[in-house]
């Protein structure tokens, strides 16, 4: 097939057959006042010229920074096998083929990915993935609304503010009431949450560790929610599950999260990976594709998409969601990453992240004028208080080769001097030391 699907001749033939002199006359009904006079598109360039142009553009990025930046997306090491296996031509496609007769490999990979998500979250059923952590959280809120028939969502302000923005904007034309419960000293205000739970509340949305890095056990809040007939939704950082109490153990009903940390590079917003897991009781209200294992006519194990009556191509406008899709290739990378690590490696990774973060806390708290918040235990990310504005410090640190963290003032009022610092297994003792020294130097 030619790259340009319609040639001048094709166009001529089509215009002739419908009796129109030229393409412009097809748009004659649009008033001239609202027509675009022309686009400022430069003339076409050769492949080499385009390559050179893009190369120059990419060099305007800050690159090779030593990253202590998190806020939901983390600089983890990606083993070579993830690129190698996911790039195999049998898998490498922008679209995910689902026909069981032609796509057993893809369907098996999705099934195994779902199984891996269930194992790390301690939940019973996972879907084939969603766009990203934020949209997955939106889908979870809508799922809770469907299951409870209630319209109020309690939002802990310790939930990633980017995700909260997504939730509010996605539902701006739907009848959903949000009530935000502010954190106190960076921790969930459990008493206020418990008081706010009522018979209109569909769900409480929590995050663990929360955006400030605080680790919590929400079992009591979740128990209170269930007593009021409310569901509990929790957004989690998957790597933390190698060490922390799991959402399943806390009694969570719907778990979501950002899967970028599982073998996906940080790439200016994506493509990333939303994951979602729940209890089998709720599976029919779950959005997205679900792969299932079955037996074929000859008694052999095989894989299919299952419970499709929930979905857009069958239920049309009444589907569980009409704005979700599977991130097949990203989910495959997460599966390869988790399989490569294995249970032991996954725990070791979590431990290493937590220990390095503790070391970074020690080094940073030794800097005069810098305070490390210690009101709650943390995993690999924590909040520090600076004697100056965090956003200015970020610029000064970037000039010196460090992405020092996320300035909290960007989303939280009165927190201009606070910086969120993340540490992954990639950060060496030397890098953490250099980071502390450089930070002290620019204060």
């Amino acid at each position, binding site marked *: 097939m030619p790259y340009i699907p319609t040639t001048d001749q094709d166009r001529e033939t089509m215009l002739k057959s419908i009796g129109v002199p030229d393409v412009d006359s097809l748009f004659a009904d649009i008033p001239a006042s609202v027509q675009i006079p022309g686009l400022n598109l430069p003339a076409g360039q050769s492949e080499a010229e385009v390559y050179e142009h893009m190369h120059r553009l990419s060099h305007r990025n800050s690159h090779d920074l030593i990253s202590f930046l998190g806020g939901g997306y983390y600089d983890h090491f990606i083993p070579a096998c993830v690129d190698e296996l996911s790039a195999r031509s049998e898998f490498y496609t922008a679209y995910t083929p689902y026909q069981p007769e032609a796509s057993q490999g893809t369907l098996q990979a999705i099934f195994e990915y779902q199984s891996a998500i269930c194992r790390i979250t301690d939940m019973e059923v996972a879907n084939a993935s969603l766009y990203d952590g934020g949209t997955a959280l939106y889908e979870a809120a809508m799922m809770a609304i469907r299951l409870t*028939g209630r319209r109020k969502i309690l939002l802990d302000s310790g939930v990633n503010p980017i995700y909260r923005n997504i939730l509010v904007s996605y539902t701006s034309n739907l009848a959903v009431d949000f009530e935000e419960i502010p954190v106190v000293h960076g921790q969930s205000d459990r008493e206020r949450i418990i008081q706010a739970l009522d018979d209109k509340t569909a769900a409480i949305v929590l995050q663990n560790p929360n955006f400030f890095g605080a680790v919590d056990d929400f079992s009591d809040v979740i128990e209170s929610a269930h007593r009021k007939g409310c569901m509990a939704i929790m957004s989690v950082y998957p790597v933390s599950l190698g060490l922390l109490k799991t959402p399943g153990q806390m009694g969570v009903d719907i778990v979501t999260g950002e899967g970028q940390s599982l073998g996906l590079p940080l790439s200016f917003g994506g493509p990333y990976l939303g994951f979602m897991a729940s209890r089998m009781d709720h599976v*029919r209200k779950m959005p997205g594709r679900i792969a299932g294992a079955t037996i074929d006519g000859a008694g052999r194990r095989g894989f299919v998409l299952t419970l499709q*009556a*929930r979905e857009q191509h069958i*239920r049309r406008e*009444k589907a569980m969601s009409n704005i979700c899709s599977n991130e097949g290739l990203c989910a495959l990378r997460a599966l390869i990453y988790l399989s490569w690590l294995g249970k032991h490696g996954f725990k070791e990774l979590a431990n290493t992240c937590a220990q390095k973060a503790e070391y970074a806390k020690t080094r940073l708290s030794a800097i005069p004028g810098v305070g490390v918040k210690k009101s709650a235990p943390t995993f690999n990310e924590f909040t520090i208080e600076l004697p100056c504005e965090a956003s200015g410090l970020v610029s000064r640190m970037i000039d010196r080769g460090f992405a020092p963290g996320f300035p909290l003032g960007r989303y939280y009022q009165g927190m201009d001097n606070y910086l969120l610092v993340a540490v992954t297994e990639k950060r060496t003792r030397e890098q953490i030391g250099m980071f502390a020294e450089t930070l002290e130097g620019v204060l």
Partner: protein
Amino acid sequence: MIPKDAYYTKDHEWLKVNGDEATVGITDHAQEALGDITFVDLPKVGKVLKAHDSLLVVESVKAASDVYAPVAGTVSAINGALGSAPELINQSAQGDGWICKLKPFDASAVGSLMTADQYEAFLAEH
């Protein structure tokens, strides 16, 4: 063939009045058209419905279809057996495969539904 003791809708629901309670289900024609029924998303007892509101969803191997309330009413009982045995609808659409009961229900609207004879004629036309 079509039970005379019930009333029918164009969406192939049936409604049978028993004193102050009405039983609702889908017709034999509907189950035949749907094929093997795999899941019935039973409504909650206490659900209040206007006429033609979506009452529940029936999933079959071919499709997922809404079942509408033939008349206004409140769900007073559901056929819990359908939870583990949705095939009861295929086996006995107007018997053991009943779906739910409405009480109270809008008795005045029953007259606007089709009788068995009218429904039979309706099926013949469509």
